[in-house]
């Protein structure tokens, strides 16, 4: 079976004021379906950049990014948007919910962009909220929720479209340890029960303990890999 994500000798360089920063150097990585993988490393090691190149948010300077067997390097913006909309779920460190929409509408928005009809949208959103045990948040606006609640809604938004993979960029960085554990437990359950592939970046040892595979990054290079 082909991996859902494959990176072949990927490199990414940021140029700033005549200075070059190698964010990624010759990365080779395969992520299979159903994995629960953490990208670990200190700040500036290239974790976010790695997630961004996988989703096509960042263009690579060298190497190939292959998503489910299809190279995405040459895709135009609309094709990349379609890829992200239909096949990738996102969870951000700062939750990034749309502030003017309620929790229900934030999650529904993904299905709306996919062209799903209103009745089906409503049913699917309510089902996801039920599964995550956050029905009480349905009609709240982001400013009416705590960080942990917002991140749960963000996870609902990421999984409502049943994507092939969820990319989570430091999903617990803004949360206290209790909420962090709750979020990681939620992701683990979704991985175990629904088979959703998770690839998340973190530098929190507590979170790393829960990953089945840990890829260590330093200065844009994979320095170690651990399987549990």
């Amino acid at each position, binding site marked *: 079976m082909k991996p859902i994500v494959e990176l072949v000798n990927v490199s990414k360089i940021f140029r700033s004021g005549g200075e070059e920063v190698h964010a990624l150097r010759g990365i080779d990585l395969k992520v299979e379906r159903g994995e629960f993988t953490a990208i670990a490393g200190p700040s500036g090691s290239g974790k976010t950049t790695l997630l*961004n190149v996988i*989703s096509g*948010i*960042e*263009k690579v300077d060298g190497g190939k990014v292959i998503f489910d067997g299809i190279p995405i390097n040459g895709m135009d*913006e*609309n094709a990349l*948007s*379609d890829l*992200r*909309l*239909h096949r*990738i779920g*996102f969870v*951000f460190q700062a939750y*990034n919910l*749309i*502030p*003017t*929409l309620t929790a229900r*509408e934030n999650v*529904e*928005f*993904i299905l*709306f*962009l*996919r062209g799903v009809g209103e009745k089906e949208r409503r049913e699917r959103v309510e089902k996801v909220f039920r599964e995550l045990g956050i029905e009480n948040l349905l009609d709240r606006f982001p400013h009416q929720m705590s960080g942990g609640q917002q991140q749960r809604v963000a996870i609902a*938004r990421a999984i409502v479209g049943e994507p092939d993979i969820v990319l989570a960029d430091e999903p617990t960085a803004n949360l206290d340890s209790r909420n962090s554990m709750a979020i990681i437990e939620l992701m683990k359950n979704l991985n175990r029960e629904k088979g959703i592939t998770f690839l998340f970046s973190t530098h929190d040892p507590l979170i790393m303990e829960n990953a089945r595979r840990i890829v260590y990054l330093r200065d844009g290079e994979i320095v170690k890999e651990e399987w549990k």
Partner: protein
Amino acid sequence: MIWIRLAWRNIWRNRLRSAIQFTIIAGSVFLGVVFHNLAMGNYRNMIRQGTRMGSGDVAIYNEKWFRMRRTNFTLTEDDVLPAVRKLNMADRYFLRFYISGYARSTGTGFPVNIVAMQLKKEVKDHPLLRGTHIESERDIIVGEKLARKLKISEGKRLVVMLGMRDGELTGLLFRVRRVIRTGIEEVDCCTAFADLDYVRNNTGYRGHIHEVAILLRRGSPDEAKRKLNELLHPPARAYTWRESMKELASAIAYDYMGLVMFMLFLYIVISVGTVNVLFMSVMDRMREFGMLRAIGMKPGQISRMIFTECLLLGATAGITGLLLALLVNVYLSTHGINIEGLMKLAGQESVSYGGVLIEPVIRSTWEWKGTAGYTIFIVILSILASWFPARWINRKSVAELMRR
């Protein structure tokens, strides 16, 4: 619905900014519609005054007289009146005969332009002569400056030397019925209004006229001109007020240019203002746009989102501005703006423009075509202004937006 909901809430999100944009659009529509209708009302008033003072909505002349203004290029009533009667658009018509002469009082003499007209009929309508009581065919109405130069006043006698059709000279005796002060220099200094039959019968032009000024009951001057020219035979020819009162037509056109310049200024203000406010709004939300792009929104959908916000704000502001303008227009069309005080402040008792006396109360009109056109144009312009910030944001990469 989600687009509209999202746009509506985004509008409410930054109320001050939205209020500024709303005010720019609503204010532009308000000012544009009010000034447009006021200007149109003023032009209509000028045209009404002009057509009653001068050549009517449409007039018939001997085409040679129209070009050269020589007294002997006349028409006979028999030539033209059948055509005028056949024109079922006419409300009233006035016959006029123009002749230059030399006015003499007891002490002095000056050149004078005699406008010979059906005085008893015209004093009911003519803006300058309205209310004058005419008793005899020898009654004459004289411009104020001319009266001063001739040292005459109401009730005094006046002799006007005129050239006859056969080349001889004749002197006609008049009694000054009224001295008028109009503010129009060529009337005040050198014009006198006399009885049509008294003048033409005594100068050998019995039954002759220079002008038939027709006021229309319905239809346009152009349509009346076309119909009349089908009925008339050369040298008789019909002309619209635009052709016969070129000075008035030019004055209106010139004034309208001023209005257009004002409108253009408004267009620039609204475009720059809207684009500026939109840019600020878009720049504030760059990270949010980046997130939306990251979760799968296409550049076109981002444009649509910004466009919908502009559409909602533009439409509500446009309607509000229009309603306010219509409310003000109700007042201005019934009560108008009295500029008498301003005229006095400027040391003027009356104001003439384009050879026409302006009424001291300017009333606006209901010019629906311009009102609707202007409103729609402003709203469309404010919506089109969304194109620039949308394009700007869509040219940035998702990563660049996310890093903000």
